[in-house]
């Protein structure tokens, strides 16, 4: 009987944990969405890599790699 009690407890612990984690998924997900939305609003005006700058990068890469590489995406990092 001891063993059965343990296993019943395990059922409870297991389901509680799974619900707790998926609550965190929901809560955390909502929090992150709000957080990122807030950041977005602040950064919106300054978030594009200037076209001129991009052109320079593209041409430099093309020279360095003798045309073997191409710019797929430019991410502004600062």
């Amino acid at each position: 009987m001891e063993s059965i009690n343990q296993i019943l407890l395990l059922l409870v612990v297991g389901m509680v944990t799974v619900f707790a984690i998926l609550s965190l998924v929901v809560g955390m997900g909502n929090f992150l969405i709000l957080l990122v939305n807030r950041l977005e609003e602040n950064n919106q005006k300054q978030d594009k890599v200037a076209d001129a700058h991009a052109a320079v990068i593209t041409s430099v890469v093309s020279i360095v790699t003798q045309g073997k590489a191409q710019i797929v995406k430019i991410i502004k990092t600062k």
Partner: protein
Amino acid sequence: MELFEKLLEMTAIEAFMSSPLSLLMLVLSFILLYLGIGKGFEPLLLVPIAFGMMLANFPGGNMAVVNADQVKDFHLLQIAREYGIMNMLYFTLIKTGLLPPLIFMGVGAMTDFGPMLRNLRLAFFGAAAQIGIFSVMIVAVLIGFTPKEAGALGIIGGADGPTAIYTSIILAPHLLGPIAIAAYSYMALVPIIIPLVVKWTTSEAELMINMKEQESLYPSKMVIKNLQRVKILFPLVLGFFIFLLVPSSVPLVGFLLFGNLVKEIGQATNRLYQAASETIMNTATIFLGLTVGATMTAESFLTPQTLLIVGGGFVAFAISIAGGIFAVKLYNLFASKKINPLIGATGLSAVPMASRVANEIALKYDKTNHLLQYAMSSNISGVIGSAVAAGVLISFLS
């Protein structure tokens, strides 16, 4: 005559006569091959598993995985010398628990959390659908399985191959073969199991709940302004809390989230994404399949336990699906924004097959009710749910 004797000695014919059950195993392997190739049941896993099973059951082929006690304290060069390359691969890659996390890394790299993030509320139902795991575990203990074996059997109800395999390796490696077979077979049978359980547990009115209609009746306030950034932060922050609360799930969830992270970062870590989702994933799948198949010899497979596992696995699937459905029904009792119970049925995971099946069922009742995107939310969260459940089982039972 000496010649004929020599020839016969070389063949496996005499050996087959002394262990005729091996022939039965060969028949089973051909049935699995038929299911995998002819019927399209999870061919990526069932074909190598069945082929490994076939190789293992030719006496003299030196391909059957031996009992772990036989190689106790052997190092891998010794294992290779004494028992051949299949045992070397098995004891290095599987018995150590290495491959399932690596496969989970690939799963992570191929998973898009987008549909879940867009319908976060529905992720809850991925929790309710883990009830099959624990229910079947209790029944299994009652009919005589040890708690460890029962946990490994129950995890079939998580409907997730690598999770089931990882849990079995740690809790009950002697049952690995039948558990893997059951897990992948029922995942392949989801198009049959889900409609069955749905028919038993839901009314036509419930199945006609139109998700998009509900959405426009009760629109969500949430707008996602930069999904890409959320998708990068999500695995990191989620990881932090899961690792904190269930550290025993780190090998599975940790690698899953790492794979997802290198995918979402994009071009900058594309090489890592390639390795996780192709190179490592495909190679690991071949070796996992062949070696898991090679554990299934007549002695290890043709036992009453195998039948119980096959039966218990089905029950675990059914209970998990029903669990998800009843959780939705319970929710609908209190909420005004109703949810189609099919969203609960996909909570067990079996991504993305379960979602497609749910979508098809919904469309039968209402041609405009495209609920695929909604189903994917609970479907994906079910992967996390069962990995966490596995962590709890391992933490308490091993």
